[in-house]
C-alpha cells in the first residue's frame, strides 16, 4: 500500500474485478490467483480462453495459472526489482514506452531511466535466473498490448524490499501508460474480506479514516471536532514493533480483536515470549485461538452471519453483511463490546446499531460519504463516492493521479535478508492454499474444507527429495535458525530445485516458527517469502 501510495497517491486497486475481464494482456506476479482469489481468476481465465488475451506469469512456483500462460518467467524468490527493472530496460531500449503519457502524467522519468540502464536482460538473467529472451518477449508483449493489467498480491509485498517491488510495478505501468483506462492498472488483490475496509477505517498507526495523517494538525482537526477530544499526534507502532515493544517491556497491555498473531506473525517463538511478557492481554474472538490461550481475558463475539455491518472488498466496493442467526450463548457483536468498554472508561457513546456507527463513518470519511446502507441494499458501491448522487468510482487515476502527477521511484535490487547457505541449503517460501484460509480458525472447522487438506505439507522438488531419500508422503522435519516443524512431503513438481513451499494454516506445524522476522523498513511487512531452511526425513 505504501508503494502505490507513493507512486499514485492512493494504495488501492486501481481498476475493478469486472474490468479485469477486459484486458488484452495480464502481468500476474506474486499471486496464486486460482487458489487465493478463485473468483477473480475466473475473469482472467475466461479472457485467456475465450478472447485470446495473453498472460505473462512471473512466479517461482509452477502454479495452476501456468497452464494458461503465454510466457512464464520463473524468477528466483526475492529478485522482483531486478526483473521488473529489466522489463523497463527493454521497453526504453526498444522505444516501446508511452512518451506522451510519461511527459504529461508523470515526473522523475530521467532518474528512472538512469537506474534501469544497467538492468539489461543479460544482467537480470544472472540475478533472477530468467532467460534474457523470455524477459524481452514479456516486455514487448506487456508494452505493445492495447490494455495490459498488472495483478499482484503478497508474493510481491512480503519481502524486505516489498515497497520497492510495488513501486517497480507502478513504474512499469506508468512507463507504458498502462493505467487509468479499462483493462489496465496496477491491481493488488486483498487477501482478506475486509483488509481494504480496515485500512480505510484507519486501523493503522499513522492514519485517521480515509488516510488522513495523525501527524497533521489540519487532518486531526475534523476528527477532534467530531469526537470532542484532542488526539495524539505521534505515529503509533506497527504489529512487528508492537511485538518487539511487548518483548522489551515498554508495552504493557494489548487488546486483540479477531486476530491471531501466534499463528500469523513471523518467528512465533518471539511472539510467544512477547505476549507472555504483557501485564494484560485481551483477546476478543469467535474461537479460543492460539493467541487466546495466552490471554488474561477472553471476550466472545458474534461472528459472520450473526451481525450487521459492511465490508469493503479488494476493488473498494462497500458491501453489506447481514444477520441471519443469533450468536451462541452470551457472545455479542464487537461494536457492542467496544462501546461498553469505552463507556466504562468515561466515554459517552450512544450507538444502538451498526448503522448508527456507519452514519458517523460517512460523516468523517469523505470517500464513503455518498455510500449509504439504503444505496447498497442490492449492490455495493466503489469509493471514492463523495455524495449520494455519485455512482462510485470503478477506475482510479483516469484523468489525473490522486497525487497529481505519477511519481517514478528509483529502486535497486537487494538480496533477501536470509539466503540459503551450506547449513540451511533450501529457500523456504510460504503462502496459502485453496482449501484453507489464513490461520485456519474458520476453515479448519469446516467439514468440506478439512476433508480436502487434512494435514500440513511441504512442496519439494523431486530431485531435492531424491537426494535425501525422501518419497511422496514421507514425514519430514523442516528447520530454520528459529525453529523446526514436522510436515509431510508433497512431490507435486510445483517448486523449482532448491526451493520449498509450506502453507501457513496449520497450528501443529506452524511455518511461522521458521520464518524470518526481517521486515520492509517502510511498510513493516515481514519477509515471509524468503528464508533459509534444511530438511530431513523423520525416521
Amino acid at each position, binding site marked *: 500500500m505504501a508503494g502505490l501510495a507513493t507512486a499514485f497517491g492512493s494504495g488501492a486497486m486501481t481498476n475493478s474485478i469486472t474490468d479485469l475481464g477486459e484486458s488484452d494482456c495480464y502481468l500476474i506476479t506474486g499471486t496464486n490467483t486460482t487458489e487465493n482469489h478463485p473468483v477473480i481468476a475466473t475473469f482472467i481465465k475466461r479472457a485467456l480462453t475465450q478472447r485470446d488475451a495473453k498472460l505473462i506469469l512471473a512466479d517461482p512456483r509452477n502454479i495452476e495459472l501456468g497452464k494458461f500462460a503465454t510466457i512464464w518467467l520463473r524468477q528466483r524468490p526475492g529478485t522482483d526489482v531486478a526483473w521488473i527493472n529489466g522489463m523497463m530496460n527493454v521497453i526504453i531500449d526498444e522505444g516501446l514506452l508511452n512518451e506522451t503519457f510519461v511527459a504529461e502524467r508523470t515526473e522523475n522519468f530521467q532518474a528512472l531511466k538512469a537506474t534501469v540502464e544497467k538492468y539489461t536482460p543479460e544482467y537480470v538473467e544472472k540475478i533472477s535466473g530468467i532467460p534474457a529472451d523470455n524477459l524481452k518477449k514479456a516486455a514487448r508483449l506487456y508494452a505493445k498490448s492495447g490494455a495490459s493489467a498488472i495483478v499482484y498480491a503478497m508474493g510481491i509485498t512480503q519481502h524486505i524490499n516489498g515497497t520497492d517491488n510495488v513501486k517497480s510495478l507502478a513504474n512499469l505501468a506508468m512507463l507504458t501508460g498502462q493505467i487509468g483506462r479499462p483493462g489496465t492498472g496496477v491491481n493488488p488483490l486483498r487477501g*482478506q474480506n475486509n483488509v481494504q475496509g480496515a485500512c480505510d477505517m484507519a486501523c493503522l498507526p499513522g492514519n485517521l479514516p480515509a488516510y488522513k495523517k495523525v501527524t497533521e494538525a489540519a487532518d486531526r482537526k475534523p476528527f477532534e471536532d467530531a469526537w470532542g477530544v484532542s488526539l495524539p499526534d505521534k505515529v503509533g507502532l506497527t504489529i512487528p514493533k508492537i511485538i518487539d515493544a511487548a518483548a522489551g517491556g515498554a508495552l504493557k497491555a494489548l487488546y486483540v*480483536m479477531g*486476530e491471531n498473531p501466534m499463528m500469523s506473525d513471523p518467528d512465533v517463538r518471539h511472539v510467544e515470549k512477547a505476549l507472555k511478557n504483557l501485564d494484560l492481554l485481551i483477546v476478543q474472538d469467535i474461537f479460543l485461538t492460539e493467541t487466546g490461550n495466552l490471554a488474561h481475558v477472553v471476550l466472545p463475539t458474534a461472528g459472520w452471519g450473526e451481525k450487521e455491518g459492511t465490508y469493503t472488498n479488494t476493488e473498494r466496493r462497500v458491501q453489506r453483511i447481514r444477520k441471519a442467526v443469533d450468536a451462541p450463548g452470551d457472545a*455479542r457483536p464487537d461494536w457492542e463490546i*467496544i462501546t461498553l468498554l469505552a463507556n466504562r*472508561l468515561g466515554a459517552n457513546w450512544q450507538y444502538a446499531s451498526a448503522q448508527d456507527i456507519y452514519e458517523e463513518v460517512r460523516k468523517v470519511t469523505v470517500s464513503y460519504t455518498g455510500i449509504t446502507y439504503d444505496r447498497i441494499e442490492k449492490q455495493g458501491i466503489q469509493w471514492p463516492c463523495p455524495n449520494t448522487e455519485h455512482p462510485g468510482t470503478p477506475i482510479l487515476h483516469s484523468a489525473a493521479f490522486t497525487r497529481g502527477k505519477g511519481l517514478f521511484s528509483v529502486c535497486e535490487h537487494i538480496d533477501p535478508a536470509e539466503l540459503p547457505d551450506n547449513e540451511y541449503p533450501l529457500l523456504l517460501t510460504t503462502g496459502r492454499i*485453496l482449501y484453507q*484460509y489464513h490461520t485456519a480458525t474458520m476453515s479448519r472447522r469446516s467439514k*468440506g474444507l478439512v476433508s480436502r487438506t487434512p494435514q500440513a505439507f511441504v512442496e519439494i522438488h523431486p530431485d531435492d527429495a531424491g537426494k535425501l531419500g525422501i518419497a511422496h508422503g514421507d514425514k519430514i522435519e523442516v528447520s530454520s535458525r528459529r525453529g523446526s516443524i514436522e510436515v509431510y512431503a508433497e512431490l507435486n513438481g510445483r517448486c523449482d530445485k532448491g526451493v520449498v513451499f509450506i502453507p501457513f494454516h496449520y497450528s501443529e506445524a506452524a511455518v511461522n516458527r521458521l520464518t524470518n522476522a526481517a521486515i520492509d523498513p517502510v511498510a513493516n511487512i515481514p519477509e515471509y517469502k524468503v528464508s533459509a531452511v534444511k530438511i530431513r526425513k523423520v525416521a
Partner: protein
Amino acid sequence: MVITIDGKKCEFTAGQTVYEVAKANGISIPVLCHHEQIKPVGACRVCVVEVEKARSLVASCAMPAENGMVVHTSTPRVLSSRKLSVELLMTQGHHKCITCESSGDCVLQDLAYSLGIDSPRFDESETYRELEQTNEMIVRDMNKCVLCGLCVRACNEVQVNQVLDYSGRGPTAAVGPAFGLTYENSDCVFCGECVRVCPVGALFEKQGRFQGRVSDLRQVRTTCAYCGVGCQMDMNVKENRIVKITTPREGAPAPNFGSLCIKGRFGHDFVGHEDRLTQPMIRVDGELREATWDEAIAYVAEKLGSIRKAHGPDALAGLSSARCTNEENYLFQKFFRAVMGTNNVDHCARL
C-alpha cells in the same frame, strides 16, 4: 430493427436471440438448457417457437433475431412439441420429487406442471444409478440428470476449471469428470458452479440435504467471510441455523455474478461449530474461568485505566482485524485514539 412476437412489435439489437428479445419484452418462453452466462446450444428443445416461413420449429435460445421475423410462442404445434420434449426428458432416469432437494425450485418440475403432464407416455429408464455421495460437499444423483450440459458448460465456460465433460452415447450418455472418476478423485476444486446452474435435482449440497426444503428456507443476502473478492451470496436459514450457502441461478450481482469458490460455497459451517466461545473468561490462578459481561468489562476497564495511569497511553496497543466489519474497525481505532489516547493500533494487512 423489429421482430413481432405473439403480435407484439419488439425492438432488438443485432446479436440478440429471439429468447432474449422476448424476455426483454416481458414475453416468457420456458428454457431448460439455457443460462444467461453460458453460450446457447439449443439442446433441450424446450424453448422451441414457431417462426413464420421457417421450415421447422426453432430453438429460440439459439436463434438470432432477424429484422421482420414473426414469432409465435404458444401455438398448438409449439405446445405439443414442448410437451413431447419434456416427456422424453422425464423418461430419462428417475424423477422422484418426494425427497428431492430441488423440489419447488426445479425447471423440469415446473415444466411438467405447467404443461399438465401427469405421467409421461413413455416408460422410465430401467437402470438405477447409485448416488455419488463420497465427498463432504456435493451429492450427484445421476438418476435425475437430464443431460442439459449446463454443469459441463459452466465448469468450462464460467469457471474455466476444465474438469467436467460429456461421455458415452445414447442411453449411456453421461456428464462428469474424465474416466468416470468421482468428483473428489478428479481435478475438481469444488467451486460448486455445477450445483448452482443445475436446473434439476441432479447436483446438490450434501450438508443441506434433508435440512430444509426451498419453501422452508429464508434467504439472507450477505458478503463472503473469506478473501477480499467480496462475493455476494445467500445464507439459507432455518430455525436459527445456516443450512447452506447458495447464489441465484441468474441475475446475480457484481462482483462475482453468482460464482463462488469452495470456501464461499462450502466453508461457512464454522459458524455453528461446537468450539464457539459463548462466555467471557478471566484468567484466575493460571486458568481461564467463565465470568459475566459485567465482571469482564469491569476487569478490563480497571486494568487498562491503571496501566495507562502508571505508564502512559503508549504502553497500550490494539490489534484490529481485517475479519471484522468497517463499523467495528472504525470503533476500535476510535477507542484507542479518542478514549485511550494512543495511535498504537494496527491490523493484519501486512500478514
